């Protein structure tokens, strides 16, 4: 859409088994540059059949062959059906790469702990997230519906992050000075580079001063978000 960064992200998905296949389906909805890597010939064939042209058969236990794929500056998504393989992969990546984002699937709290320990940037526990969802549906139905509309349902409402460019109209202004409602947007929070990577929820009530480099998390309709983004860029 307006954020060109999104499409340009290079993703390598490791594993195209039962789990990987579904992950690929979900990712391919948003991203175009996805490479599938697996050590099973059948899985690779399956991937090619489902339209993934960049599927590669690689011996995952060989570091040299892994490096040959070209991992640097890419997002590495481990979704092998075997958990031990995911842990092994994450460990390999940590030892042979410098600038990568490693995401791994986990199936238990124990594996999550191990994966985080060996250096995965993000661990997604598939059962934990499912359980969270079930509990949310029951305990907070309205909230769940609203979040669904935002995250899952494609109805134009979305949550986006926008980085404030240099010399934009926001720079030097305070939160209370900007009427986001007039833009049809809701400001959820700000991630301030100066104050560390911590995320500040706007509801905390701190009157934050916008700086270039701050990342705003905004909720609103795509058109409103786009208008706002354009305006932000214009002032440059």
């Amino acid at each position, binding site marked *: 859409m307006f954020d060109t960064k999104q499409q340009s992200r290079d993703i390598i998905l490791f594993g195209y088994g039962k789990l990987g296949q579904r992950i690929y389906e979900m990712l391919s909805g948003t991203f175009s540059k996805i490479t599938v890597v697996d050590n099973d010939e059948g899985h690779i064939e399956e991937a090619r059949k489902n339209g993934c042209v960049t599927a590669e058969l690689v011996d995952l236990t060989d570091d040299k062959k892994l490096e040959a794929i070209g991992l640097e500056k890419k997002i590495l998504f481990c979704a092998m059906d075997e958990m031990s393989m995911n842990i092994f992969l994450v460990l390999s990546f940590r030892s042979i790469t410098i600038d990568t984002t490693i995401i791994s699937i986990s199936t238990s709290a124990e594996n999550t702990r191990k994966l985080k320990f060996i250096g995965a940037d993000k661990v997604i526990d598939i059962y934990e997230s499912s359980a969270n*969802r079930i509990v949310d*549906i029951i305990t907070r139905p309205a909230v769940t519906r609203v979040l669904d509309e935002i995250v899952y349902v494609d109805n134009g409402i979305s949550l986006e992050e926008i980085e404030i460019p240099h010399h934009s109209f926001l720079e030097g202004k305070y939160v209370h000075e900007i009427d986001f409602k007039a833009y049809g947007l809701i400001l959820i929070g700000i991630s301030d580079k100066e104050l560390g990577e911590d995320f500040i929820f706007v*509801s905390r009530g701190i009157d934050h001063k916008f700086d270039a480099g701050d990342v705003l998390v905004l909720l609103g309709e795509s058109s409103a978000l786009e208008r706002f983004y354009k305006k932000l860029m214009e002032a440059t």
Partner: protein
Amino acid sequence: MKRLFVKYLVALSYYLESAPRYQRTKKFFYDLLNNDDYPYKKYFDIFMILIILSSVTILVMDVRERVAWWLDYYDLYIVTTIFVVEYLLRLWVYSDIHKVVIAEFEESEFFEKPFSFSKVLKRIAADKWRYVTSPAAIIDLVAILPSYRELRILRVFVLFRAFKMLRYSKSLIQFFDILRSKKIELYTLLTLLAFFTLIASVMIYVFEGNGTNPNIHNLFDAVYWALVTITTVGYGDISPVSTEGRAVSMLIILTGIGAISFLTSIIVSAFSEKLPEIKETRVMNLILKKRDLNLVCGYGKVGQLVAKKFKESGESFLVIESDPAKVEMAELDGCDVLRANATKSSTLLKLKLCENVKSIICVTHNDIVNVFITINARSLCKSVQIIARCSDKSVAKKLRLAGANHLIMPEEIAGLLGAVYIGQPVAFDALQAILTQKKSARIDEVEVRLGSFLDGAKVGDFDFTANRLVLLAVMKRLESKDKSSHYIIFNPPDDTSLKAGDILVVMGYSVSIADFKGRVEQSVRYKTAVA
């Protein structure tokens, strides 16, 4: 004269049949006396047990010394009156007299026969007689007797007051039920014991009853000795003196030990066999009192996590699992578990699906089983919320057809989360924090209560920002009364009007949300007080 009487009787019967107050009263007493699910029965039972205990204490004390006159008075009049009233109430609620009269009247009208008064009486008497002759009723009646002081022998019936306690204590009843399940074994053992006692007593009588043993005067002494020995009690007031007598003793001591251990093992095995059942009854008693129950079918990975989170958030839930190993695990984790098969309709009916259950969560590891549970639940109840887990896409369609409200596909959720994280890591972290509620920022729902300050107001009337809240959306109720049919307005403009039943979805810190909720609640009280 008779015709007039019949006419009034029938009129009265019809009046009773249609009188709500009479029906209510009768229902109340029925529940109080017989319905285990009735919440106040417990208090009645405790009250009766206390009465019985006090009465037994008085009667026991009375054996050796005279008790105070007012205690005697209390026992004689108050306790007896309570017992008599209870007995009569039970007799009353056991069957409906007026229904018999109405049935006979309608029958006589239909066949154009005269109204048979004797037939009605006979039928009523038969009904009530059935109650009077039931074991519980006999015990009740006998328990009233000890109040009659003139006959001292009647004091023995104090015991029956203790028996009467059985009625009010479920665990005692359960104990007898368990013994009943081993009836055949117990009978066999008793017959065996009786046989050996008889043989031993005859033998000792033959060997020592002729004056050899000064303590054995007659056959009763011999039987008494045999029983005391065979049960390994061995008082020693009678002991064999001759060699033959000792030989008999040695034999029956050995049989006695065998018999006693046999008896113990029967009782123990009866209990261990019934243990799951006892546990189940306990769980059921506990569970059936709860409303808004969530059923977690399957205690696999997802089931365990869901149960844990429910426990943390204080939702009431019941785990249904058929695998004994997993049942045990759930018990160890401190969950209420029912070992049953959720695909069977009897399981769900037992839990009063339509009345008590809010949602059914099918999270067994097998997609097919989840489909079966969904079909089973939906066919029994239209309104219950069903959340089903599945891995396969083709099953997803079937689950929707079967009537699942929400589908949970772990792989899909993981993929979506992955996609959101890759695309927008900052937003993802924010979302994650909100979702998992680990940080204090959270999203919550606040319902616009009837008569609160929000009811009839506009969104702009309340300064959300000043209260450190962010209003994300308003869910407006459609005209229908159905609660689930809300439509969502994101980022509502200031002039959006609010009505009772709308739900505000706000983001903020726990304290701010709690404060806001509190204000909504308070304004309701204030407004209704003014009105």
